[in-house]
């Protein structure tokens, strides 16, 4: 699964730490998500999408 998290963080001027704080995860989890090494739970995917004000499928792209 690909994600647009890095691109959207840059758009909204958010650091990995700030995003991690907003969705209550560790910074390492954001790193793994951006590298496509981890598939998040539905709740986490939803929370991240809410931060960027987008739909889940616009942030997380199934290959």
């Amino acid at each position: 699964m690909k994600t647009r998290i890095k691109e959207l963080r840059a758009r909204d001027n958010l650091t990995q730490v700030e995003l991690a704080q907003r969705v209550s995860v560790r910074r390492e989890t954001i790193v793994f998500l951006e590298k496509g090494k981890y598939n998040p739970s539905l709740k986490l995917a939803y929370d991240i999408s809410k931060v960027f004000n987008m739909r889940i499928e616009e942030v997380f792209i199934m290959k």
Partner: protein
Amino acid sequence: MKTKYKSLVSFISPTLGIMLLGLWAYMAKEPFNTVGYLIFGLSILMIGFGLYFKIQRFNSEKSGLTSDDELSKRIKEKAAAKAFSFSIYMWVFIILFLIDMEPRDKIIIGLGLIGMGLIFFLNWLYYSKVGISDEDKN
């Protein structure tokens, strides 16, 4: 009692480990042989790794981040599951080929291994029935 930093409490186990290792080295009647040095070195290595990850957790908590989340829990669960299955085979191998002991003692250890398998099976049955929800709850 509410601890401000949960991860501070987790420093207790590596501290105890270092103290016990130190005590063991101090109370050894003879200098260590190769095996002794190997055990000592491996123990230091494991405690070192444990401390490294605990310090990372502590720093995460200090910067307002959660110290444990869904990914870290999944990693722990996967590692524990793999460790469990490898350990069972390891112990079977050890008692069959590496240790010279009375058949009665082998039976006792074997029963212990079967007990481990039974505990795993009962847990599996339980979670298969009740399911797993809210994995992200600490």
